[in-house]
């Protein structure tokens, strides 16, 4: 009595409910508070930016997979995550056509050309931003004052710029920094809203504490050593979004816990080096990209020792 009712699977016969798309969904959910915040601070235009970015990412992925005759897997949500994160690191009044180019670069150039999900070596959103910053330096550095979005012309320097160039403009208060009422990129300004998302990801075990914690702590310690205002250093620029959402990207971060801590410390050091002595006011983007390059090396030296290898 053979039965052909079911397929034969190998063990294990039970699986966790975790799936790739569920993880992506959690990341998207975790970004919603910051998204709402950004609309409040910078106006409805940022929604257009986010929307164009997501559409550009999904379309690029779809196009590539069709062109290369690969399985179309735009449904796993990873392109949406890239789209949102990319929009979050753009200035609030960025022209939409630049956003579209950036989304295309992030997916086509940085992700799919390297083999698609799980194979890219650089963070797609940050790499696209870095390319755009070099290509369109004026548009990419035009920041506006919060809650003044009805008057488009007013630009306002970011807190990091104020601190670095010591220009005569008052810094936003700590409270403003904390809730996000400061000039900066679309999604990076609100510490509290990003923390809510970050904690959600930690609770859902999508990310572990190792990278965000070691990254932020390193920046904090270096700020203390070099007599910078620690709280401003932590809450300004893209440190919070970088530490919780960018540096923790699975593919482009080390696989072991030890490696993750080394990665976080490295990101922290480079961020601080750029902020203090580099020519840019902000270093989060480049520090993460730089550490992305070192991931294979870190992995190599932090591999776990197999059970029973101790003498």
């Amino acid at each position, binding site marked *: 009595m053979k039965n052909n009712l079911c397929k034969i699977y190998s063990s294990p016969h039970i*699986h966790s409910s975790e799936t790739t798309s569920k993880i992506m969904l959690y990341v998207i959910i975790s970004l919603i508070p910051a998204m709402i915040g950004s609309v409040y601070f910078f106006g409805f235009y940022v929604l257009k930016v986010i929307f164009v970015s997501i559409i550009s990412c999904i379309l690029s992925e779809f196009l590539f997979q069709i062109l290369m005759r690969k399985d179309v897997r735009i449904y796993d949500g990873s392109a949406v995550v890239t789209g949102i994160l990319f929009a979050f690191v753009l200035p609030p009044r960025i022209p939409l056509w630049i956003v579209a180019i950036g989304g295309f670069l992030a997916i086509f150039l940085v992700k799919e050309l390297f083999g698609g999900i799980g194979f890219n070596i650089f963070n797609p959103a940050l790499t696209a931003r870095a390319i755009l910053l070099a290509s369109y330096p004026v548009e990419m550095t035009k920041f506006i004052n919060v809650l003044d979005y009805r008057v488009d012309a007013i630009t306002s320097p970011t807190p990091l710029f104020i601190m670095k160039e010591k220009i005569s403009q008052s810094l936003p208060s700590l409270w403003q920094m904390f809730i996000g009422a400061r000039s900066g990129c679309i999604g990076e300004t609100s510490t509290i809203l990003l923390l809510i998302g970050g904690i959600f990801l930690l609770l859902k075990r999508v990310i572990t504490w190792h990278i965000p914690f070691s990254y932020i702590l390193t920046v904090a310690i270096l700020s203390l050593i070099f007599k910078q205002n620690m709280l401003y250093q932590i809450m300004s620029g893209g440190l919070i979004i970088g530490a919780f959402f960018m540096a923790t990207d699975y593919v482009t971060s080390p696989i072991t816990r030890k490696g993750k801590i080394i990665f976080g410390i490295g990101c922290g050091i480079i961020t601080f080096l750029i902020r203090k002595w580099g020519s840019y006011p902000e270093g989060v983007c480049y520090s993460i990209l730089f550490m992305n390059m070192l991931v294979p090396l870190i992995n190599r030296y932090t591999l776990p020792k197999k059970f029973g290898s101790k003498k």
Partner: protein
Amino acid sequence: MFKGGIKLLDFKSLSKNEPIEEFEYPEKVIIPLSQHTGSPAKPVVKKGDYVVEGQIIGEITGFISSYIHSSVSGKVIDIIPWDLPTGRKSLSVIIESDGERKSIEKKERNWLALSSEEIIDIVRESGIVGLGGAAFPTHVKLTVPPGKKADFVIINGCECEPFLTCDYRILKECIDEVIEGIQIICKATNVKKAFIGIESNKIDLIPVLNNSIKNLKIYVEIEIKILPTKYPQGSEKHLIKSILNREVPSGGLPIDVGCIVFNVQTVLAIKRAVCNGIPLTERVLTCTGLVGTPKNLKVKIGTPISKILSYCNGELKYGRKLVTGGPMMGIQIYDLETPVIKGTTGLILLPEEDLPEEIQPCIRCGKCIEVCPMFLLPSEIGRYAEFGRFDKCENLNVFDCIECGCCSYICPAKRPLVDFIKCAKFKLRKK
């Protein structure tokens, strides 16, 4: 406590409170001659022979091998290859029972009067193998190799696989016999101290165990260890790590760190063989999952699985799958006429899972590496195996994998990591 591993829903309450029930005397049994690790037994009966319960029908063919006994009285109707639950085929003796339950003469013995060699001989002739699933011949384990010394005997009562409750029921119902069995093992291996390791979800056994130890005459020291409920706590290596903090060296055996580990049912089988002269012809298994009435059953070796399934009101229909052993390491059955063998710990009817048809790409979340109790890199091994680079798998210590299934379980991309690993091992061994 060991690093890695996963917490699982245990589903043990389905059958936990069902007392062990004797399953009906089978009309026909299929007894494979290769139920154990090692070389298959050689048949010593012919077609048409009359055999009784406990009679030897397969003879040992090497040191790592085992005797096979008839589990019923009746006539041998055929000796043909048959599918095993393990997925392999083995020459099997098919016996039609006459229902008279005739048995060999059972010799009662006092184990205190027996020497170590005599005990090991009895265990070998009784065809006892590890009943926790791996079916490693027990007499081999009991024979401490020259130059090695056993410090401790460890009794594995963890039963870390979800669903299974047969070992729990054995400890609850036959504890006195188990305690006696432990002492027999200690005598055979010349060990003074034994541990019983149980997971914290079976904490209600503690008074039962303590009572038994208090009331019986005990010749060795027996200590009960409560271990955290974490899969794979019942893996030999991890059990030793948890109890003694000793790590079995890679490629080594528990005896390399002075331990010998036995499953509780094996201990019971040893006691019954040595004291009561009963060879291994039956075992207790758990039939559970989506069946109507989950049960713990004492089943004759060779009973077809279909009989047990229908007795427990289970039906294998569309959208379900039947697994022997636990859900983490068990093997899916495709033929219901497959017999119960010595290593069959359970029979579980599970819902078919909604797994992707095609292999999905690894997203490098690193969860498999975090849960791997052997500290390997399942994701990397999987990536290499997927593209046929088995040489790389070997460098990544694929042979240290115990195939516990934690990595496949946790993988968000649902990559069949254990399949990859098994495939790599197979290809490398063939080379």
